[in-house]
Each structure stands twice: as structure tokens, then as C-alpha cells.
């Protein structure tokens, strides 16, 4: 159980910086998700911790010790790869015992620890199978058992559930979280699946272009995204841009086009300054209304697409002047008994001042 620190990590491939001065700390026992589009540097960071990538500058420390010069095989890390990388010529037992065997653990202890690892991932009984004879979910569990049996300091997961179908993925998410809690190991995982990151992580970091855009608990990052990228990457967001029209006792009035104003917390804004606001689709209330006059924290529009998904419905609402392009706003509503609105219905969208978040461009 260990702390991992990254200090000023830089890695360049030609002119492209895969890691551009990244610093962060992973706490003991924490489940940390690295999230970002492909090429954003999250995988490079994971591979730098594993030792497959040598940093151009900066350091990786485990429990305060710089491991930059330590070869992969001496780092004592556990890693689960996207396609599991189970050894095809070895049985399940041999795969799991591999890490113990190369360390010279006595055979009797190997047997006992392999059995423990198998029961941890609930796959007792498959000892003699070859990886090819296992399902995707089973292979994933074996890979996890193999990575944990050596009692590593850190567990690294590279898109661990990427190869599974949706149903199995949800099941494995719960399983992964359970095992991680039981073992209590510091776990760092890379994913491009935002839902997976939100479900599994104690904390997440969003990467873009080799830098950390934002790090924090999933709830925090979701509720208070710092910029347009973070708001749009983690979950869905509607962006409203305008100008600060007035300041009043800690509140700022932001004027959007077409006369609509939005009230938000002032947060040091100045009159005349441009402001970008993000509003989550589930924070908008939608009601049928023929009132097309602009108002405060209110937009008027017409329902366009209606996407029914059982327990909820998503609306795409065309706001603003029908002649001009206007703006399409996404609204998400739980199906809690209110009638579902038909396409073409005139509606107004309203929200509370807390619901709009000021974000950087």
C-alpha cells in the first residue's frame, strides 16, 4: 500500500508533448481514474509509472523513493492490460503463479496464494484451463488475480474493461471496486469511458494535450468543471456565452443574445467581461409554454428531437430566433409520471442560479 507521486513529468515524442509538466499525487489505497481522449497523455503517464516509458524530465516516486532508474521488473507493480495479456501457453494456475515463480517463492506457498487469488476473483475450479478456454470476463479476472498475487505496491489498469460488452462491463466494475476495497491497494486506471471513471474512482483527473485539465472527486469535477473541455468531456453540458451586464450584491447578471439574462455568483467578474456558462442537461426544467419573451434564467424554444430511453427522456430544444441558427439545448428528464412532450411543442427552460457554472473557454 503506497503513495505514488509524479513530479513535473515531461515526455516528448518528436515535437508532440505526451506529458507536458504533469505533477500529481496518488494517495494510499485510493482508486484514481485517468480520463481523457486518446493521445491526451493518460496512457503515457501510466506506462511511465510502470517503467515502460522513460521520462525526459521529472520524476516518479513510490513512497518517496525515485524509481526512475528502477527497471520494470523490480518496481513491484501489478498491471492489467487492455487485452489481459494472459500467457496463452500456460494454464490459469501457471499464469497466476508466474509472478511468484520468477521471484522464487516456494511451491507450497505458491499453491496457497494462487488458491487465495482465485477465490478472491471467484474463479475457483478453473485452475487447469488455458486462457483460450475462458470467457472475456473470466480472462479479465485471471489477469487481475495474476497482477495482485505478488502483493504489488500499486495496481495499474490500462482500459481494463474496454474489451468487454456493456452488461459484463457493469458487472466487472462492481467486482473490480469490491476487490480493490478488500485489498486496499493504491490503484491507478486509465479509461476513455467517462461513466466507468465516475463509477469506479475516488478521484479522477481529466487529461488533454499532455496536461491535467482538472483533478478532484468525480462529484466535484462533474459539478464544477473548470473549463469548456472538462465540462464537455465529463458528462454532457450546454454552453451559454454572454457578457456581464450588471453586478448586484455578489451576483452577476450575464446577458446572452436575444435578451435573455442569467444570474450567477459573481466570482470576481467585472461588468462588460465575457462569460461562458455551462449547464448540465438534468439541471434544466422543461415546461410547455407559449411565453416566448426572454427572462432571467429562462430560455424559450421548441422541442426538436425526443429521445425516449425507458426511465428517462432526452430532448433537443431549439432555442432562439427560428429564423437564425439559434442554439440547440439538451434537456434530460426522468420519466416520473409527467407526460412526455412531443416534438414541436413550445417550451420554456428554466434553472436556478446555482445550476449554471462559470467555466473558462
Amino acid at each position, binding site marked *: 500500500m503506497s503513495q505514488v507521486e509524479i513530479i513535473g513529468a515531461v515526455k516528448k515524442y518528436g515535437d508532440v508533448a505526451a506529458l507536458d509538466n504533469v505533477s500529481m499525487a496518488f494517495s494510499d489505497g485510493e482508486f484514481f481514474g485517468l480520463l481523457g481522449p486518446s493521445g491526451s497523455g493518460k496512457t503515457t503517464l501510466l506506462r511511465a509509472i*510502470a*517503467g*515502460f516509458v522513460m521520462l525526459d524530465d521529472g520524476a516518479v516516486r513510490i513512497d518517496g523513493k525515485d524509481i526512475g532508474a528502477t*527497471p*520494470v*521488473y*523490480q*518496481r*513491484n*507493480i*501489478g*498491471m492489467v*492490460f*487492455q*487485452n489481459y*495479456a*494472459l*500467457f*496463452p*501457453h500456460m494454464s490459469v494456475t501457471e499464469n497466476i503463479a*508466474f*509472478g511468484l515463480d*520468477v*521471484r522464487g517463492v516456494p511451491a507450497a506457498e505458491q499453491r496457497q496464494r494462487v488458491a487465495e487469488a482465485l477465490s478472491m476473483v471467484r474463479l475457483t475450479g478453473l485452475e487447469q484451463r488455458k486462457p*483460450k478456454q475462458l470467457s472475456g470476463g473470466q480472462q479479465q479476472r485471471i489477469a487481475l488475480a*495474476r*497482477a495482485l498475487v*505478488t502483493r504489488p505496491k500499486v495496481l*495499474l489498469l490500462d482500459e481494463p474493461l474496454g474489451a468487454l460488452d456493456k452488461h459484463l462491463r457493469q458487472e466487472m466494475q462492481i467486482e473490480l471496486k469490491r476487490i480493490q476495497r478488500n485489498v486496499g491497494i493504491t490503484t491507478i486506471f486509465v479509461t476513455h469511458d467517462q461513466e466507468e471513471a465516475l463509477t469506479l474512482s475516488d478521484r479522477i483527473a481529466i487529461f488533454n494535450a499532455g496536461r491535467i485539465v482538472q483533478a478532484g472527486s468525480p462529484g466535484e469535477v462533474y459539478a464544477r468543471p473548470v473549463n469548456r473541455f472538462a465540462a464537455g468531456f465529463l458528462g454532457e453540458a450546454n454552453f451559454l456565452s454572454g457578457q456581464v451586464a450588471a453586478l448586484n450584491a455578489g451576483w452577476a447578471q450575464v446577458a446572452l443574445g436575444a435578451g435573455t439574462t442569467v444570474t450567477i455568483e459573481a466570482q470576481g467578474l467585472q461588468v462588460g467581461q465575457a462569460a461562458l456558462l455551462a449547464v448540465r442537461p438534468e439541471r434544466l426544467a422543461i415546461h410547455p409554454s407559449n411565453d416566448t419573451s426572454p427572462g432571467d434564467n429562462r430560455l424559450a424554444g421548441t422541442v426538436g428531437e425526443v429521445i425516449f430511453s425507458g426511465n428517462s427522456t432526452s430532448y433537443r430544444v431549439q432555442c432562439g430566433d427560428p429564423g437564425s441558427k439559434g442554439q440547440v439545448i439538451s434537456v434530460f428528464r426522468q420519466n416520473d409520471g409527467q407526460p412526455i412532450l412531443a416534438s414541436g411543442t413550445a417550451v420554456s427552460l428554466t434553472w436556478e442560479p446555482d445550476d449554471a457554472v462559470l467555466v473558462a473557454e
Partner: protein
Amino acid sequence: MSTREKGMGIGGLVLRLHLGLVLLFLYVPIIVMAVLSFNQSQLYELPFTFDLVWYKSLASNDRLIDAGINSLVIALINTVVATAFGTMAALAFARYQFRGKSLLQLLLFPPITIPWLVIGTAMLVFFFWTGIGRGLHAILLGHVALSLPYVIIVVGARLANFPRMMEEAAATLGATPWQTFRRVTAPILAPGVVAAALFAFAVSFDQFVISYFLAPPGVTTLPVAIYAAIRKGFTPEINAISTIIIVVSMGIMLITARFYRFGGER
């Protein structure tokens, strides 16, 4: 069932005929030769009388036996050398980026397509010119040069499907590079290496033209000796030694095929 019945139509008949002819022309000569090696008559007269006379006379034919030993020794050394160097080269091609890599890879193919007669002539001239000369050492050199591309291509094909992640996984589990190679890389590559070794053996053991050109008077390999013997007058001893070769080489093929499924699996 209906597809099976359809298969017996004109198309099916042609396919079966085709298969039958292929098997006929491939195997009937071999079987006839093998049977006749056990026939007493030198002139292939029937009725067939079982006798080991030709195997006995082969046993006292020092020329053929020496040639056979030469062939076997050269083929075995060639197999070891070409497989070792070829595997290393294939690993280098698959794993490292270096200057001239594409050019080198491209240069692997022409020796396979250039007629052996041309290569044999070129080698003879070159070996004469450099002072390497003729002899078993020259034959071995020529065979290794010829087999290398086959080994590199066969092992390379196996490596192309080899996920690098296996080795990375082994490293994260605490295996040193040597442990990783011995316990992960080598076993996964083994079927490709064995197939490549068979190719190398076959290229050398079957080799006639280059051996013929590079053999000095008095030194021969088996194919060269068989050719010389046939020119002088055919005896069923040739049938006998050919039968032995066939039995041994088919045996090796079948055993290896039993242990390693060649083909694209895994």
C-alpha cells in the same frame, strides 16, 4: 444433406477427379519406387519378389553412404546456424527501428525467386575469387545464405502476431528480461522457430545445384551422388536410399505437425 447431394453433381465430380489426380501424380511414383526397392529384380520385372538385396548392397556402397553423411551433417549444421541467426534477425526486424531496415527486409525476397542455378554460379565465382574455394565449408556457407530468408520470413510471420504486451506483462510480474524470454517469448515463438528449422533443413538437404557447383571432385552430397549414379546407370539402390529418406523426412514432418499446429492459430 442436400448440400452434400449437390456436391455430387458435375462440379463435385470434377473436384474429386482433380483431387484424385493430384494424389495420383504426387504419391503413386513414390509408392512405386518404395515398393520396387524391395523387389529382387534389377530390371523391375514382375512378379514382385520381396528381398532386401538393394538395402544390403546400399550398405556396402561407400560412395552413397559418405554422400548421405555429408548431406545430413551439412543439413543439421545449416539448420542450427540458419535458425539461430534467422530468428535473431527476425526479432531485430520486429522489435527495433534502424537505418536501412526496409531495404534489408526487401533484400530478403530476391534470393528466393532467383533461380538456384544463377545463385550457384554467382557463388562459385565469388568463392573462387575470394579464395573461399570449394568444399563442404563452401557448401555449408551457401546453404546458410539460402536458408536465412526462409527462416526470417517464417519466424517473422509468427512474431507479427506476437503481442508485445505479453512481455510487458511478464516484466510487471517481476520477470527479468532473460526470464521473460525463456518463459514467455520463446515458448510462444517455438512453433514458428520449429517450422523455420524444418524449412532450413529441407532447403539444405534437397539442395542440388549449389552443392553440385561447390563440391570439389571426390566430395559429394546425397542429391549430387544420386544424380551421378543415375547418369552411370540406374540401380534399385537409389530406390532404397530414396525410400529411407522419404520415411525419415515424412516421420519428422508428422511428428512436428503433431506437436505444433502450423497455420495461423493463436
